[in-house]
């Protein structure tokens, strides 16, 4: 007896749960590897997964087993030169292997354990516990999102929505109601018939009469239809408006001549992280890209990351453009507005107080959160000092300093760390 079963179409991911368990258990190591890897990647490489390396020692599942030393007797095949009693010098590496004890069973020795996580898993770990601060979800948008919810039953609808239980309940009720009268009569007649049957006399005529009456009643009862279109009930669905939060992020980047290639690279990396984080966590978010030297310009994503333009620096031009766009397109009552500015700190000296004023008077009152990052190896200049004054008093404004590529991710995490109060 043999049965063939084709299992090829069965789910092939039986091990998914176990794989997740594995990742869950080694989360701290994997996270460490992820945050190291983020700096090693190319600027625009955002679509691939990541190789994760964990030292094998951490993964060990210890069992009691025999170690080194003692007397070991082994049989080997393929003797080509030995005779009984030969002495062989002990090969040096054998002791090392013996010490580990597990060298033979995996054949891999003490390599690190390397495996690949997918892009999604990578980003998930990268942006875990991060969020946009102060996001409010109380705005009911004009183009509100709807979700479909069940709302009772109705008498009309598409056939696919028929609710069988409800419909049959209706059918039973109707049948009971429509036949109750006839059943009652039927009971009486049947009782009479049994009485007559027990009677000593034949009573054929009366019996026949009763039998026909019973027959016609039964007929009538059976003619009541089992189910009627009248019984049908359909599940009813209604659209319900759901509150959504609309948010916009302004990304402002300095592309002036003082920003050398390395600094621009860091800024771009920062914005790519920001971009990934936003598009991944908040599906419907607007991102406005502004880059500036002496003049500011709104550009698209591609130009923002790839264009080569340079010039002098007037940071306020970008802030002014941002204010203009806000007033034109993003009413602060409907939108959660965020801003991020990256610069090397070089600015036209007279312009910095102006920036502070713009920031303080026009931007911060309307935005939920604004972050400024300064990418420089040198001492801070006027813009930082001006901004620092605001940051001291206003907690929706924060400034951070990035020196090298390695600082990007920690700074990024610091800026968007989920606040405990909000999580609760």
């Amino acid at each position, binding site marked *: 007896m043999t049965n063939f079963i084709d*299992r090829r179409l069965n789910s092939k991911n039986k091990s998914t749960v176990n794989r997740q368990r594995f990742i869950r258990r080694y989360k701290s190591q994997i996270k460490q590897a992820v945050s190291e890897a983020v700096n090693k990647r190319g600027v625009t490489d955002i679509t691939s997964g990541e190789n994760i390396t964990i030292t094998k020692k951490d993964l060990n599942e210890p*069992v009691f087993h025999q170690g080194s030393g003692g007397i070991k007797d082994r049989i080997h095949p393929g003797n080509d030169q030995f005779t009984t009693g030969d002495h062989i010098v002990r090969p040096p590496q054998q002791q090392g292997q013996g010490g580990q004890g597990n060298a033979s069973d995996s054949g891999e020795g003490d390599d690190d354990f390397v495996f690949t996580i997918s892009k999604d898993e990578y980003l998930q770990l990268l942006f875990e516990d991060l969020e946009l601060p102060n996001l409010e979800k109380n705005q009911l948008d004009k183009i509100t999102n709807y979700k479909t919810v069940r709302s009772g039953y109705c008498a009309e609808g598409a056939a696919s929505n028929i609710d069988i239980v409800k419909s049959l309940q209706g059918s039973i009720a109707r049948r009971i109601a429509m036949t109750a009268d006839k059943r009652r009569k039927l009971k009486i007649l049947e009782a009479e018939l049994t009485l007559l049957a027990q009677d000593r006399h034949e009573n054929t005529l009366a019996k026949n009469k009763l039998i026909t009456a019973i027959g016609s009643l039964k007929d009538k009862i059976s003619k009541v239809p089992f189910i009627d279109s009248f019984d049908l009930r359909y599940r009813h669905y209604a659209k319900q408006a759901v509150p959504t939060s609309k948010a916009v992020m302004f990304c402002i980047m300095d592309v002036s001549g003082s920003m050398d290639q390395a600094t621009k690279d860091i800024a771009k990396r920062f914005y790519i992280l920001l971009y990934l984080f936003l598009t991944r966590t908040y599906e419907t978010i607007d991102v406005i890209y502004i880059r500036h030297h002496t003049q500011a310009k709104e550009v698209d994503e591609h130009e923002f990351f790839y264009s080569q333009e340079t010039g002098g620096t007037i940071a306020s031009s970008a802030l002014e453009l941002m204010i203009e766009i806000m007033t034109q397109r993003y009413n602060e009552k409907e939108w959660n507005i965020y801003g991020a500015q990256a610069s090397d700190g070089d600015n036209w000296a007279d312009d910095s107080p102006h920036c502070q004023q713009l920031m303080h008077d026009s931007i911060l009152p309307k935005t939920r959160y604004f972050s400024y990052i300064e990418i420089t190896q040198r001492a801070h200049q006027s813009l930082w000092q001006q901004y620092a004054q605001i940051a001291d008093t206003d907690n929706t404004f924060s400034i951070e300093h990035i020196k090298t590529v390695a600082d990007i991710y920690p700074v990024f995490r610091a800026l968007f760390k989920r606040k405990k109060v909000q999580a609760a």
Partner: protein
Amino acid sequence: MTKRERLDDSSDWTFAKLEQYQSEIERVAQHYRLDTYTNQIEVITAEQMMDAYAGVGMPIGYNHWTFGKKFIQTEQTYKRGQMGLAYEIVINSDPCIAYLMEENSMAVQALVMAHACYGHNSFFKGNYLFKSWTDASSIIDYLLFAKKYIADCENKQGIDEVEACLDACHALMNHGVDRYKRPQKISMEAEIKRQKERESYLQSQVNMLWRVGADNEKEGTKPKATFPTEPQENILYFIEKNAPLLKPWQRELVRIVRKISQYFYPQKQTQVMNEGWACFWHYTILNHLYDEGLVTDKFMLEFLHSHTNVVAQVDYNSRYYSGINPYALGFNMFIDIRRICENPSEEDKLWFPDIAGSNWLDTVHFAMENFKDESFISQFLSPKLMRDFKLFHLHDDSDKNYIEVGAIHNQGGYQKIRTMLSDQYNLSNLEANIQIINADVSGDRSLTLRYIPHQKVSLADSKDEVLKHLYYLWKFDVKLLQENKHGVDEIIAQCPKPDELAKKKATL
């Protein structure tokens, strides 16, 4: 005998062809008296094969990170092309489940069916170890029960708790086997029924044991009886029955891991025989079909290519050498037994007076049914085979700075090589011999174990880590002793460590 239609030898397989080949193979297998469980042949893809790999041969496994790790490892090595997947996996259950991989060609599928569905399957049904230690009909049900029970525990206790407990059990899994006492049969219904009663019963037993201990302490006059009265080698069983503070669900987890360990124990003891038997039969059955003219030369060439790959033995000095290939040894021993029966030489008549010239089919069946690797080798390894394999014995004593060649494949060495090779497959020599010698029921509740070295081989460094796991289950001090050169017991590992203990006392 009627002339049969020659079987289609094109390399792509179809279900119709599989069935054709299967029925021919089955006919031949019956001709050779192979008694099998019902076969359930499942065709799967390479990805599913990797899943099956990760489940370490359990068709239904509970969830645990270690299986995830295995899966990732398999996937990784497979993707890099460092490793091909096995052609098949077969499970000791009734019906006997065999997985065929979609990618295999027809010839390989035929090989696998003969190998797994008739070779391994008949071994599972016929060998005395499997007969008396495993219950093929109930294992699937039991695994189902285990999976569900563990999932329930995770819901109730949280994943971390369950994971920690399973980690601890896995560390002691090799010491969860009854070697001499036959375990009860397990089945799901009975298991669920009993499980509830057992929870409370076990707990009451444990309470009893520890209460008695407390009483003794009060009276203080009775001479101390050691508990357990005899050393216990089944550590997990001892824990399940006696650990003072385990919660009922933890006891059940210990039991599940123990049962699964027990289920796999015969497979560990019969690797050479089991694979040898399966190889012998795929070889014999397909050659039989060839002799009948049912399969073509083309088919046979492809089959032989795969077959010789499987049973190849590389020499000790090859860079691919990783010990004796159990497939090669087992296959050649069964072929050799047949040769001894059919064409015995003078030497064979001297060495194997019982079987030389006897009916070969009776003899191989007898060998399959009544032996395990160590006894099989010590009984049937012939001088001819030792010469063919050019076996030699290395004696490595760490006290000396050289390795000695103890014996080679010559008249003076046959007996010794046979004994040594047999010992090499003796599990009780290979696994660390550790026994529980005392649980201090009336005192500090500490648990003492003893390591008895085999041929002076010391215990590997992992012992400290394992002891931590044992401590997790026992929850009181755990000590591991070993007798030193002067015959005095020395503590070679303990948990918590003495300095931690001192700290603990200081804070008290």
